[in-house]
């Protein structure tokens, strides 16, 4: 069952993942609330729970007397089968997964054994923070972006069963930009988007979200400096909702037909009373809000959404604006069904669904009249009936755009656009073939990583080393095999103890210096003189450098140092915490044999002679 979405990013993403989960819960509650409010007078079934709600409702609906207006046998039959098969909304079943570590999206996509490729994962969202891609500015954008683009193209080619959704980049202009000359930020964001479009990636339009919200509200410098998380709470909520919206589109839950009312919805006023001259509908100024609303509906129809009309009017009156009003954007031929009569709207809408042979749950109904909306909600609970903005008609176009996004987003447009898509896709595949195949090893090699491992000795380096070592033991949670927390005094004592070895490692790559990111502590055990042993008491690494094989390289150096001292048996310890799940299988992966393996903790052993550990890192140890 594909029920998991994965989030990848070049910045902290765990908080957004929690936010997405919250939005899923929220939409679940909304859904239940809706179901409940549609049967306000009925008591909750005993043993009320998720299943109970649905079962209870279904049986109530089945045993209900026919609504008087639905006497037509066919309609009622159609309705019943709809209700029986009514699904829960798709969001309810989505789990959210983020791979461990920080900024690991590239190695995760390249790693054939990443958890991303498990069956449960269906959609992968790659959300990129523009400024973090261009720490040195965007002048060399084409060169800098080529690697990420190659990785994305390749991941998709190799994992055709996954849907990769990629964000656009939002990149503020350099504050030192002159008024004339090239704006590299704008070029970089355009280049990224062009390339994604050429390769036909589904896009999460981050820069559009930012544009609508404003950078000031979307980002939070405080979160960025505290936790490498660029977004504000507001920004995260918008991103989470966008992800859910895309997820619905990906899962094909888009509605098929938009049913529109006429008076007060497509134009202002009442055609039967005001006449063609009297209704509000204009090409500019007052009345043009209705034209703008029509434009959105027209775009939907051009993208293959069916339009229909359900209006209480004389048919003749209803059609006059379409035929006579110069500012009607929508024409009769844009509609597949026009029901303008004095029948109850639920009956007309049910008839539209039946005649088009689509499910009631494929319909969205728009009406400015709350009484009509309520009638449709009550009689046809499967039909989506969004609230119409009351009071201020200047909100109508925005409302309609919202409806379009919420109910009618699709992964891609088929038919005539398909040809263009096909062309782009072929080009992208040629492009991918030209670019040499990228393996995880190639990628790691391209990082030009340099690792320096050094032993902490009493007094031979300044005191800052001890402080950093203590800080690493206290702050590192994910990649930490034993999670023992030490103070500076503890560590100073260890460096003075000739039976203890303490190492730290620094990492540097072509993007910059990561500083001291690894700590290993080994305790020597010479009780059995013929078999000198050592136990790795602490082995931890900052999550900023996970996914690059740094741990293999550090462990290799540590093992070699111990063997050089005559150690023949090395034991690795593991103590489980709520956060160190990513390293549960570490010793096993490193070739250690289990010695004791109790729930939550274990001791693993490796005996000399040791095999050389393969690495793509230039070692200095």
């Amino acid at each position, binding site marked *: 069952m594909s029920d998991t979405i994965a989030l990848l990013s070049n910045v902290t993403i765990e908080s957004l993942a929690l936010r997405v989960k919250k939005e899923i819960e929220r939409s679940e509650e909304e859904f239940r609330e809706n179901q409940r409010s549609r049967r306000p007078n009925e008591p909750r079934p005993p043993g009320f729970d998720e299943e109970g709600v649905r079962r209870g409702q279904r049986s109530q609906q089945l045993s209900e007397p026919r609504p008087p207006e639905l006497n037509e046998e066919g309609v009622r039959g159609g309705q019943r089968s709809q209700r029986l098969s009514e699904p829960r909304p798709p969001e309810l079943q989505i789990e959210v997964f983020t791979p461990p570590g920080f900024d690991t999206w590239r190695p995760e996509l390249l790693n054939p054994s990443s958890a991303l490729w498990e069956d449960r994962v269906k959609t992968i969202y790659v959300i990129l923070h523009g400024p973090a891609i261009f720490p040195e500015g965007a002048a060399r954008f084409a060169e800098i972006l080529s690697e990420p683009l190659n990785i994305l193209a390749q991941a998709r080619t190799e994992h055709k069963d996954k849907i990769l959704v990629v964000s656009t980049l939002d990149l503020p202009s350099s504050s030192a930009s002159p008024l004339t000359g090239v704006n590299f930020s704008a070029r970089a964001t355009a280049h990224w988007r062009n390339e994604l479009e050429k390769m036909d990636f589904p896009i999460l339009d981050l820069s559009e979200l930012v544009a609508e919200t404003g950078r000031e509200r979307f980002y939070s410098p405080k979160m960025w400096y505290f936790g490498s998380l660029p977004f504000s709470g*507001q920004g995260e909520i918008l991103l989470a909702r966008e992800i859910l919206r895309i997820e619905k589109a990906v899962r094909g839950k888009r509605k098929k037909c938009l049913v529109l009312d006429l008076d007060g919805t497509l134009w202002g006023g009442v055609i039967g009373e005001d006449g063609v001259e009297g209704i509000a509908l204009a090409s500019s100024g007052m009345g043009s809000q209705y034209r703008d609303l029509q434009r959105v509906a027209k775009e939907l129809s051009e993208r293959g959404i069916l339009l229909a009309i359900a209006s209480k009017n004389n048919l003749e009156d209803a059609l006059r604006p379409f035929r006579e009003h110069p500012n009607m954007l929508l024409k009769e031929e844009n509609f597949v069904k026009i029901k303008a009569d004095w029948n109850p709207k639920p009956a007309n809408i049910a008839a539209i669904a039946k005649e088009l042979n689509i499910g009631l749950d494929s319909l969205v109904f728009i009406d400015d009249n709350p009484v009509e909306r309520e009638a449709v909600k009550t009689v046809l609970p499967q039909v989506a009936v969004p609230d119409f903005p009351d009071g201020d008609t200047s909100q109508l176009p925005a409302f309609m755009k919202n409806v379009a996004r919420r109910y009618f987003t699709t992964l891609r447009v088929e038919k005539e656009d398909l040809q263009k898509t096909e062309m782009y896709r072929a080009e992208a595949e040629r492009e991918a073939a030209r670019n040499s195949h990228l393996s995880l090893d190639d990628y790691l090699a391209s990082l030009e990583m340099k690792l320096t491992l050094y032993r902490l000795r009493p007094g031979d380096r300044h005191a800052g080393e001890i402080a950093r070592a203590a800080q690493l033991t206290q702050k590192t949670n994910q990649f930490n095999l034993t999670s023992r927390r030490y103070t500076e005094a503890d560590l100073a004592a260890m460096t003075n103890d000739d039976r203890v070895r303490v190492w730290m490692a620094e990492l540097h790559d072509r993007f910059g210096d990561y500083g001291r990111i690894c700590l290993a502590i080994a305790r020597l055990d010479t009780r059995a003189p013929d078999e000198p042993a050592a136990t790795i008491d602490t082995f931890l690494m900052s999550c900023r450098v996970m996914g690059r094989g740094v741990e293999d390289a550090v462990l290799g150096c540590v093992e070699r140092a111990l063997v050089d001292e005559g150690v023949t048996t090395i034991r690795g310890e593991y103590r489980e915490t709520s956060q160190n799940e990513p390293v549960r299988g570490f010793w096993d992966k490193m070739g250690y044999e289990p010695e004791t393996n109790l729930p939550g903790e274990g001791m693993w052993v490796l005996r000399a002679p040791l095999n050389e550990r393969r690495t793509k890192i230039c070692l200095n140890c």
Partner: protein
Amino acid sequence: MQNIIDIISEVLGTSVSEDSSVDDVAGWDSLKTLQIVMALDEAGCEIPLEKIAEIRSVRDVVTFAKQEAR
């Protein structure tokens, strides 16, 4: 102050008191601290960057938020 405690409870998913601290609330990690600060920000209650790392308890949050309000 009750407002701040409510926000913290909401983020941590469990009811906390002024005496609760990172050591006795299960799952209160640095990510949760970050979300608490974020939620307080949204509610118009700012804790300065320098103080975030010092947060060890509900009382700390209340103190830092009050200092800022003054």
